[in-house]
């Protein structure tokens, strides 16, 4: 494998890891506050559709992004109402949200565009274009560093840079601010937060809302940056992979970056069977390759990648004890 192949592979990794990273951080906020969320998938899907649909109708990708975030937030609120206000089962609520998104996106797409559940292809301002960072072209020919900068680091859409910037931001918010302290506390022991005079419900809704925003960006990235339009089921299980990455990351922001990059790499390798063949010397079954992220997830979940301790109050609705 030569250097340019490596760069290409990593470039692809970055693209494929971005939605995972955003969804993973979304899940991190929610689960750190004690709300399990297997509805990441659905929120991404809804956001992917609404951002593409609105971008296509309005011609502006930014309005599309706002719509995608709005759709994802709406589902977040549903999850919040079910699991915070009415103390329902968070897993069941998440399952429902995934179905809801899978159905409603196609239903509305068909109703609005009559194109069999997809949106029209986005043109021009309806898409997030790749950004060329300053100096990328100038140093493109410098060996090693040139391709690294101009191919790998430069040339992604703004959402990719936002996703990567979200990692330190999340870390800072979580560990350096009052909000972060309270958020972490509410996921560990909501009673402590409650008796300290802070609203558990308010904090959890805030966390769920942030989760909605990040999922919204992730979905918008899929349909308006990675692709030029929505097709049905285009989230394709990424929400679940993000969830697995979150566990692998032990609910920490920087680890989330590493683990989603790892899953992104699996995805990138899937498009390069030739590279795998040259690396391991045998031709790998296409199906095995496709199933690899899921198999890896199971292995990681089985604790072969180290035991992960989830937030102690995770998944449990908060009921004041009697």
């Amino acid at each position, binding site marked *: 494998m030569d250097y340019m192949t490596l760069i290409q592979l990593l470039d692809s990794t970055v693209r494929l890891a971005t939605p995972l990273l955003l969804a993973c951080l979304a899940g991190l906020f929610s689960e750190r506050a004690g709300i399990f969320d297997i509805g990441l998938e659905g929120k991404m899907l809804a956001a992917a559709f609404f951002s593409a649909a609105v971008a296509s109708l309005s011609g502006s990708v930014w309005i599309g992004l706002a719509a995608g975030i709005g759709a994802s937030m709406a589902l977040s609120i549903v999850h919040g109402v079910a699991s915070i206000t009415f103390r*329902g089962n968070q897993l*069941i609520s998440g399952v*429902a949200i995934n*179905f809801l998104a899978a159905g409603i996106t*196609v239903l509305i797409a*068909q*109703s609005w565009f009559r194109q069999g559940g997809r949106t029209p292809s986005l043109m021009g301002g309806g898409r997030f274009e790749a950004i060329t960072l300053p100096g990328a072209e100038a140093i493109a020919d410098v060996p090693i560093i040139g391709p690294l900068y101009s191919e790998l680091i430069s040339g992604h859409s703004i959402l990719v840079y936002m996703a990567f910037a979200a990692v330190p931001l999340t870390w800072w918010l979580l560990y350096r601010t009052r909000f972060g302290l309270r958020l972490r506390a509410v996921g560990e022991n909501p009673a402590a937060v409650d008796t300290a005079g802070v609203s558990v419900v308010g904090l959890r809704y805030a966390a769920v809302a942030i989760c909605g925003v990040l999922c919204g960006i992730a979905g918008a990235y899929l349909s308006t940056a990675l692709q030029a339009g929505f097709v049905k089921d285009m989230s394709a299980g990424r929400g679940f992979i993000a969830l*697995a990455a979150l566990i692998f990351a032990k609910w920490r922001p920087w680890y989330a970056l590493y683990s989603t990059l790892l899953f992104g790499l699996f995805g990138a390798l899937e498009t390069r069977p030739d590279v795998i063949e040259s690396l391991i010397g045998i031709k790998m079954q296409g199906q095995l390759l496709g199933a690899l992220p*899921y198999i890896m997830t199971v292995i990681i979940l089985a*604790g072969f990648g180290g035991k992960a301790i989830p937030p102690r109050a995770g998944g449990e609705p908060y009921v004041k004890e009697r």
Partner: protein
Amino acid sequence: MDVMPKWAEVILVPLISLLLAAILSALVILGIGEDPVAAVKLMVTGALGSTYGWGYTLYYATNFIFTGLAVSIAFHARLFNIGGEGQAMLGGLGVAIACLYIPWPHWSMALVGAAVMAGLFGAVWAAIPAWLQAKRGSHIVITTIMFNFIAAALLNYVLVNLMRPKGSMDPATARFPEAVNLPTLHDILAPFGIAFSKSAPANVSFLVAIAACFVLWVLIWRTRLGYEIRAYGHSESAAKYAGISPFKIIMITMIISGALAGMMAINNVMGEAERLVLNSTEGAGFIGIAVALMGRSHPLGVFISAILFGFLYQGGAELALWTTIPRELIVVIQALVILFTGALDNMVRMPLERIFLALRKRNAKAAEGSK
């Protein structure tokens, strides 16, 4: 003391939840610019207006009974089996192997053989996540989701590379021999002089599904194993105290659950398609979740809600056939049913409890007053 009488808990709460889901569904239909009343009419005529419609409704219901029971038994042990889909896929593989490679002399023997193979394959596919949960503490919800994806890849591999007849472009097996074709309801009812649509796929598996409901009811409420499963589901710490091994319960429950999900394949693969195609399960594994939630994990409730979902499915197919409303409408309705009967349960229960409490207080006062 319980706040609500039992009938309210078992019947009123799900019924109101269902009603809310129905109202919201109607709003969705309105929202996409269609007429909910007309849509419902079309669905009812299409699904229940003829033996043809019933044939499809019951065919779908059979699938959902199996997957609904699978989810239910796992719920009793507080295990959330989202892997019904993958287990049913593997069950299909078991059926295909049984039907293609064993020369059965009669369909009845083939049915038994195929059901055993389907159950076995489904059970194996559920046993791995179960073992991971019991021994490694991996969350069964996520592992079963992952196993759905892995099952799809595995089935794909087997169909494309191993079982596809030479020259065929379909990722599907060859057609099963005539001898293993299951009698449809048409065949079963004809001797009794009842005319039932010939082209509908409902078949003898429906009776197997009913039998499965009964067997599961006995298992859960009349056997020691069922007692242990329920005890474990209610309190793991108490189960440990009583000497009920969590490992054993998780494994056995998931094996039964997986076997039930797998056995769905005798209906859709052996009874209907008569060959194994990719995606033969069509999401029935997921619908099992809604069916189990609505049926309160009771076999009778599962039966009733499976029929309801069968109706929704067949009605939805008719809608897609005769109007421009996509079939995804059914997915939305299903989501709303899960949301309201499962996650937003308390939204209905809390006000109801308040009402019953107020009623009781008033009665108590009235009783005092009369003294």
